[in-house]
């Protein structure tokens, strides 16, 4: 096993990886930009290396600097996390050339699966069903128009090098095609360094269900079941769960989709952890969408129901160990649901809400896993995806997991910035969500607005503020320091 590993990422996933390394007695090297000098991840690591200014292009995306840090600290391997360089074949290649193990699939597999159009071709060869669409990138608008007409609207524009909804646009009518193509392509260019996009038929109200696979370098390949990630906003997953509610009713679907995923992975010569994303329609037909050749944000739900540790297997596989788990040994127990806690404003287009976390009370207790990258006093930077933490609940049944998650969300208090914590409670209260009737249209077809407090709750808040003011006036010795938010609430009194 490695003695020292560099974590080429930030935020909650860097914390999660550093924890895993510590648990395995492997020294961890964190990297950081200016914005992350005082990040939680750096403070929990054994060693740390400065990369550069805050923009990712000058820090977390700088292959040269990351390799220099790895060499300088004597790291034998690099874990890329998700995002940033995690699906960058050149980076994997550069690691190999520097004699440093890239903890992930071989560069060749990243290349094969990194292009969505090539991945589609590979899936077709492997005999897995795919969504009808283009086998190559869009060359010009006329080609796009004719393809879209042939597929039939609605169609979906997707970035060839993409992921996470960046560079993706749904198009309902031909007149919107051109501007959508322009937006998608420019977003793709900025996000992935390539503006290439392609067209697919849009499956109506599909479920997004993905299969986790794990393979070693000795030809062993298994799947760890599915995650349903249908609750998306602008193609960004916000709630993920395992098992999928549809699998609870149709358990044979897991084996069929698992089989298809393994055939694709095998065809790609895949090793390490990876995920095959599928759309599932109402008749339980499934279509391969794309493969993510990295650890997923939502991997904890799989870990909780299967009782495995995916990061540990990534490390062991990268170190050349054999996968000691057989498909028969993988069992599923209970239900796990994850919420992605973002610094964003659900009442204002979900715009990011960076700033200082002035107060933080995190939930814990039975069945709660919190993978957090923040602390009270942390300044959420402008420069990156504003994911604060992942809150995951496990319980013996889906219904209990929902209620447990709701309990934990009610305890989750974040002050100083806006977050989507309360928004999740509205999703969890939705009767379709509770019944497991999910689709990727779930959020677009609903609008959640916050409900006013009950009268007595209003009175309680007013009492809290009024008494805080009077306590601080009376200078009661046991009263805590007068705080920013209380001060703001009562400021007019002092004028």
């Amino acid at each position, binding site marked *: 096993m490695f003695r020292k590993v560099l974590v080429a990422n930030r935020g909650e996933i860097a914390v999660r990886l550093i924890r895993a390394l510590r648990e395995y007695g492997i020294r961890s090297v964190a990297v950081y930009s200016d914005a992350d000098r005082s990040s939680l991840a750096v403070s929990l690591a054994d060693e740390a290396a400065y990369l550069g200014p805050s923009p990712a292009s000058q820090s977390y995306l700088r292959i040269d600097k990351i390799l220099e840090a790895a060499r300088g600290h004597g790291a034998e391997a690099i874990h890329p996390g998700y995002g940033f360089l995690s699906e960058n074949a050149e980076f994997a290649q550069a690691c190999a050339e520097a004699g440093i193990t890239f903890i992930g699939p071989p560069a060749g597999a990243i290349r094969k699966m990194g292009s969505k159009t090539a991945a589609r071709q590979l899936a077709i060869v492997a005999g897995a069903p795919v969504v009808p669409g283009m086998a190559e990138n869009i060359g010009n608008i006329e080609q796009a128009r004719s393809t879209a007409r042939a597929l039939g609207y609605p169609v979906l524009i997707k970035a060839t090098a993409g992921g996470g909804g960046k560079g993706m646009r749904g198009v309902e009518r031909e007149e919107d095609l051109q501007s959508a193509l322009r937006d998608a392509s420019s977003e793709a260019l900025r996000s992935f360094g390539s503006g290439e996009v392609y067209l697919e038929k849009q499956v109506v109200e599909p479920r997004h269900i993905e299969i986790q696979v794990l393979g070693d370098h000795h030809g062993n390949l298994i799947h760890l079941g599915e995650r349903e990630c249908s609750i998306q906003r602008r193609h960004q997953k916000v709630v993920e769960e395992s098992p999928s509610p549809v699998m609870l009713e149709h358990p044979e679907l897991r084996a069929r989709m698992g089989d298809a995923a393994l055939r694709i992975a095998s065809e790609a010569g895949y090793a390490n952890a990876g995920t095959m994303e599928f759309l599932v329609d109402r008749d339980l037909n499934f279509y391969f969408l794309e493969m993510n050749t990295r650890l997923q944000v939502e991997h904890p739900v799989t870990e909780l129901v299967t009782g495995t540790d995916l990061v540990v297997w990534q490390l062991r596989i990268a170190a050349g160990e054999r996968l000691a788990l057989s498909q028969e040994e993988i069992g599923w127990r209970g239900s796990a649901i994850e919420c992605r806690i973002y610094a964003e404003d659900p009442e204002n287009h979900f715009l990011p809400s960076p700033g200082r976390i002035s107060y933080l009370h995190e939930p814990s207790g039975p069945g709660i896993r919190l993978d957090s990258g923040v602390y009270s006093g942390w300044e959420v930077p402008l420069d990156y995806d504003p994911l604060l933490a992942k809150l995951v609940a496990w319980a013996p049944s889906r219904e209990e997991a929902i209620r447990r998650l709701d309990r934990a969300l*009610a305890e989750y208090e974040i002050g*100083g910035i806006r977050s989507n914590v309360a928004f999740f409670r509205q999703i969890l209260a939705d009767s379709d969500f509770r019944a497991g009737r999910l689709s990727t249209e779930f959020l677009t077809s609903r609008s959640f607005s916050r409900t006013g407090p009950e009268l007595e*709750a209003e009175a309680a808040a007013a*009492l809290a503020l009024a008494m*805080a003011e*009077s306590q601080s006036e009376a200078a009661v010795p046991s009263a805590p320091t007068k705080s920013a938010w*209380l001060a703001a609430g009562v400021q007019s009194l002092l*004028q």
Partner: protein
Amino acid sequence: MTRDTLIEGRSGRIRIEGSSFRYEREDGPIVEGEFSVESLEPDCRRVIIDGRVYRVAPGARGEALINGRPVSIEIFDPRGLRSRKSGGASGGRQEISAPMPGKVVRVLVQTGDSVEAGQGLVVVEAMKMQNEMKSPKAGRVAEVRTHPDAAVVAGETLIVVE
């Protein structure tokens, strides 16, 4: 002690005498009873009203979390000179401003255009996401104060709709 309150945009008044209180909202409802308040973590309070517990913690600026639920709140001393600040919409003229620093990608309207509620006005990119700012009302574009590729700061007015 008497304080005026503005909670989720609705005005009210709370009167406190010893451990008794009476809270009256200007739209009618009244609640009164016995209470106690204790400090928990710095900034967090637990309030008990007639045996029912409320946890009041700081939320986003100007908001409290009541049992985890965000609620905008301000209190005022009625003896003070400052008049109440309204939390509601400010008449017929609406300024569409940048919620955070970023860059204008495209401007979708021109001065004088008629717009519908929900119609896109301007696309701003911030934190790698393109966000279309929509018109809060049907009306006419009175001013366009920005242009493509302009860097914008938080709070900067981009478009005015009347």
